[in-house]
């Protein structure tokens, strides 16, 4: 079966259509704001000012963006292999467990620059392990990865609640969380970079994980488009049959992709755990894994797009907090709606406007879409 859609010029495919989809998502979100009885334009102004108006706002925006870069990359790596990893949430949660074990063991004896690499490895390993089981079951037993990863999110939540109200909770404490880490497990802040530009910052949690996230984005780009493994993953994602014919082992490629995806998800936990809260608490991931789905779809699975989309969602998170102050009717849960709308319009309905845009291109310049392709566009 051929793809039902004809080709468009690259700039329209990668620039115009995502922007239109995004715009529609935000217009619908604007209607929700109106339904609540507020002015959507004023809301947008407050939101952007809250996110970028002051140095502290920028630092918070980038702090949230760091988290979303990791989860977005995680979803994207799996998606390139046509695996829909909804389990990023659970993998990040379990990644936090790995970090907790490292930090609780070593934070009194080692400095941060020794603990950090160990924690990265632990977080990645725990996350990868949580991705490995669904991957194995998909590859070997044919169970649907979407269902298993959803189930593993719930299992992860149960495991973590059990550990955090039991073995990991310090004696005599009521709160379901580990003890606070000592200075050895606290990551250095990056706020001075923003202060270089003359902005003032009153304590913001932006930390070195932001750089790690950018490095990982570059490595993911390298992996997907410049290595043999990435080529195999994309081949499998495009056509499992072709991959099998080319001698690519299905089991190996599914398991590798999911473990990389899980590792990236696990590393997300470094940012809030070691960079901000300095403990592992119940539900510290708080939906960031699911935001990763929106980020990956919006960034069209490309690391550059993902970084941009993550900053946009960071802005929504930080600006949304400011918005909740100014307009009490709009709480941070507005983000959840926007996230859902972005997933709907940039993901499930990504082809909705394509036939119209194609018709437009075809009437303006038939060459840009190719005459033969135009014939096949009747939906």
């Amino acid at each position, binding site marked *: 079966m051929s793809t039902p859609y004809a080709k468009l010029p690259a700039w329209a495919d990668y620039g115009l259509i995502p922007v239109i989809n995004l715009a529609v998502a935000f217009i619908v979100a604007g209607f929700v704001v109106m339904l609540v009885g507020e002015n959507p334009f004023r809301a947008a102004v407050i939101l952007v000012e809250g996110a970028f108006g002051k140095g502290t706002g920028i630092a918070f925006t980038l702090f949230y963006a760091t988290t979303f870069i990791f989860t977005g990359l995680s979803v994207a790596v799996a998606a390139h292999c046509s695996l829909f990893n909804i389990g990023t949430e659970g993998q990040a949660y379990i990644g936090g467990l790995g970090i907790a074990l490292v930090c609780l063991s070593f934070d009194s004896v080692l400095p941060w620059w020794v603990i950090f690499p160990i924690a990265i490895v632990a977080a990645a390993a725990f996350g990868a392990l949580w991705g490995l089981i669904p991957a194995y*079951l998909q590859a070997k037993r044919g*169970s649907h990865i979407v269902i298993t990863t959803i189930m593993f999110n719930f299992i992860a939540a149960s495991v973590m609640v059990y550990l955090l109200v039991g073995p990991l909770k310090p004696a005599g404490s009521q709160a379901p969380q580990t003890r606070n880490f000592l200075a050895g497990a606290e990551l250095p802040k990056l706020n001075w970079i923003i202060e270089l530009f003359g902005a003032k910052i009153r304590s913001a949690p932006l930390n070195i994980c932001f750089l790690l996230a950018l490095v990982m984005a570059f490595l993911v780009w390298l992996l997907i488009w410049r290595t043999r493994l990435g080529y195999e993953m994309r081949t499998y994602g495009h056509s499992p049959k072709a991959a099998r014919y080319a001698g690519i082992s299905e089991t190996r490629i599914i398991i590798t992709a999911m473990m990389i995806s899980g590792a990236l998800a696990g590393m997300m936990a470094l940012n809030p755990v070691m960079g901000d809260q300095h403990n592992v608490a119940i539900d510290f991931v708080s939906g960031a894994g699911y935001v990763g789905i929106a980020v990956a779809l919006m960034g069209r699975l490309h690391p550059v797009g993902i970084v941009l989309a993550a900053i946009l969602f960071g802005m929504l998170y930080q600006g949304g907090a400011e918005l909740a102050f100014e307009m009490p009717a709009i709480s941070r849960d507005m983000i959840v*709606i926007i996230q859902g709308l972005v997933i709907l319009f940039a*993901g499930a309905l990504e082809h909705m406007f394509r036939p119209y845009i194609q018709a437009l291109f075809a009437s303006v310049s038939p060459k840009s879409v190719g005459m033969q392709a135009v014939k096949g566009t009747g939906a």
Partner: protein
Amino acid sequence: MDMFNAIVQVLDSTIRLSVPLLLACLAGLYSERAGIFDIGLEGKMLVGAFAGASAAAVFHSALIGLGTAVLISVAFALVHGFASITHRGNQIVSGVAINFIAAGSTIILGQAWFQQGGRTPALQPGERFEAITWPGADAVKDVPVIGPIYGELISGHSILVYFAFAMVPFTWWVLFRTRFGLRMRAVGENPAAVDTAGISVAWLRYRALICTGILTGVAGAYLSMVQNGGFVKDMTAGKGYIALAALIFAKWKPVNAMFACLLFGFLDAAAIRLQGSPLPIIGKVPVQFMQALPYVLTVVLLAGFIGKAIPPRAGGVPYVKER
């Protein structure tokens, strides 16, 4: 006798806890049998619960509440259909989107309309579905064995409970004894064949999704208007996903679905009942283990260690007419 009463109580709460699962599970059965994966059961239940409780509180009528719940839930089902049938989008992505839109909008609108931190006003008697006492339930109350079974297990539930269990044979009948059911199953297995027979694949799938919307709406109404006297944010708490698990566990069959939901409901009821108290032989089981058990069981089943769960063949694949 104490032991017996305790068992009746656990079974009674098993029934209450499995009703929303059963309704959502049957809802998923319609759409998945027609070849549309529906991760969005959770979200549709949530909007149903919110719409039901809001309308019931505003119009002071349980029936209007139920109607609104069904209407809004069907509207969300149609959005899923619009994305995944008409525009051939990814069904899982669309379902995830619906869950988020539902989770966010119920909180935002609830806060804006009622200003009670995302809750809807507490429902008064008459705005909720009351328990129905069956004839003679009071008379036999003191009779040993029969009394508690008839009085507590069978009698004394709301109309929606009986509706949910009546839907099991009804769904079986629709699925295996009607033309619509036959065609729906066919469209989930081989849509091209249905298309060749001159039947619209899209319209069949839309109708299946409308059935899904109706049932998730009732499931939501049950949560907010029977189990709880009002809507609380995120009150579905993963029930949509457990229903999905039950659907797989039941291998997409209505009667099995009932037993799977009763099993998962029982696990939940037992976890609440046993909190902290030790079991014979096994000793003390952490609550979290009991809560995770439905998910673990589903994973084990999916892995093919207890029989094989084979989904409808065309599930998740958008239908493209040959041209």
